[in-house]
């Protein structure tokens, strides 16, 4: 549905306008159609993530204390760094789209490269975060073993006793937090990876001067997709890393 599709469609274009596909009458109609299609696609993506957000809401509502405690096992700094990285890549993506608008090949190459670079940066940070979870037995599954944080233990309400809770509950609810964490950031991560692939292909095509890149839509649509990925993270960050008590 994104750059690639558009490129392949191009091969079939004929008639006066080289980029115009046969089912459309004008370039304007075609562009409009692509934009509407992309936005519709983003709306389905919203609902796709929405299911998990809904589950998150329900369980955070049910287990507020444990979610609060469990979130301390996530590093605000790493998450913040990743937010910064994604915001930056969004910014550079916007510039890449702008360069395409101004038909600047060099601009596109630079800004797309920056975007991909930051996207990789995001994955690297995520990799460190995930592996830290493995080390601390915070990956849901048989080896899951949750230690309440000292802040929970030191909380005036819970002073010195939390460690005595053998509570299977504590484990379960904390595990629920991490299940949601891995599902949601994992799904987001998959989107990042798809984004990297698409943007890299786009970069390559611009680099090679592929005729399809004359056409503005592929990069515009990739841009929309990438901003969407950014927006999802904008919400994931406070929901997982910044739970206030």
């Amino acid at each position, binding site marked *: 549905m994104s750059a690639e599709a558009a490129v392949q469609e191009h091969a079939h274009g004929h008639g006066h306008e080289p980029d115009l596909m046969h089912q459309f009458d004008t370039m304007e109609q075609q562009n409009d159609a692509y934009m509407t299609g992309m936005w519709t696609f983003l709306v389905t993506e919203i609902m796709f993530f929405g299911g998990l957000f809904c589950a998150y809401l329900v369980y955070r509502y049910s287990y507020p204390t444990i979610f609060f405690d469990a979130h301390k096992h996530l590093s605000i700094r790493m998450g913040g760094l990743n937010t910064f990285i994604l915001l930056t890549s969004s910014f550079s993506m916007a510039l890449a789209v702008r360069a395409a608008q101004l038909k600047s090949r060099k601009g596109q190459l630079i800004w797309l490269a920056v975007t991909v670079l930051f996207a990789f940066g995001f994955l690297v940070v995520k990799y460190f975060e995930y592996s830290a979870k493995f080390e601390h037995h915070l990956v849901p599954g048989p080896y899951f073993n949750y230690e309440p944080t000292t802040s929970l233990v030191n909380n005036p309400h819970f002073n010195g006793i939390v460690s005595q809770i053998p509570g299977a509950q504590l484990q379960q609810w904390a595990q629920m937090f991490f299940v949601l964490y891995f599902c949601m950031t994992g799904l987001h991560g998959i989107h990042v990876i798809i984004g990297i692939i698409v943007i890299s292909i786009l970069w390559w095509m611009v680099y090679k001067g592929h005729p399809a890149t004359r056409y503005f839509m592929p990069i515009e649509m990739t841009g929309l997709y990438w901003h969407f990925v950014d927006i999802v993270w904008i919400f994931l960050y406070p929901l997982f890393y910044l739970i*206030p008590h």
Partner: protein
Amino acid sequence: MSEEHGTHATHEHPATSVFTFFKVYIALLLLLLATIWVQYQNFGGLANPIAMAIAVIKMGLVMAIFMGVRFGSKLMKLWAFVGFFFLLILFGTLIDYSSREWMYFHGWSQ
């Protein structure tokens, strides 16, 4: 053709200046700092709404400027709205969980 054609297609709108993008980018970073700062303050029950409000503002900025919604057709704006509206309906599920306990005070059982 269709009435949406009257409005601007995205590629026709004037290219947003680098400076505007940069301003938005800086604003986003400031908001990021703000949301972290809020986390360390003691806002009690307000902390959550504030964090979410900041996220919504960030989203709004990204959508309006980076994604070009402000130049987009009405249809595009409608779509952006519809997506979130139906998301809210889905979140209505939470009402089930939050209102189950009301029943007890009416002498009902669930």
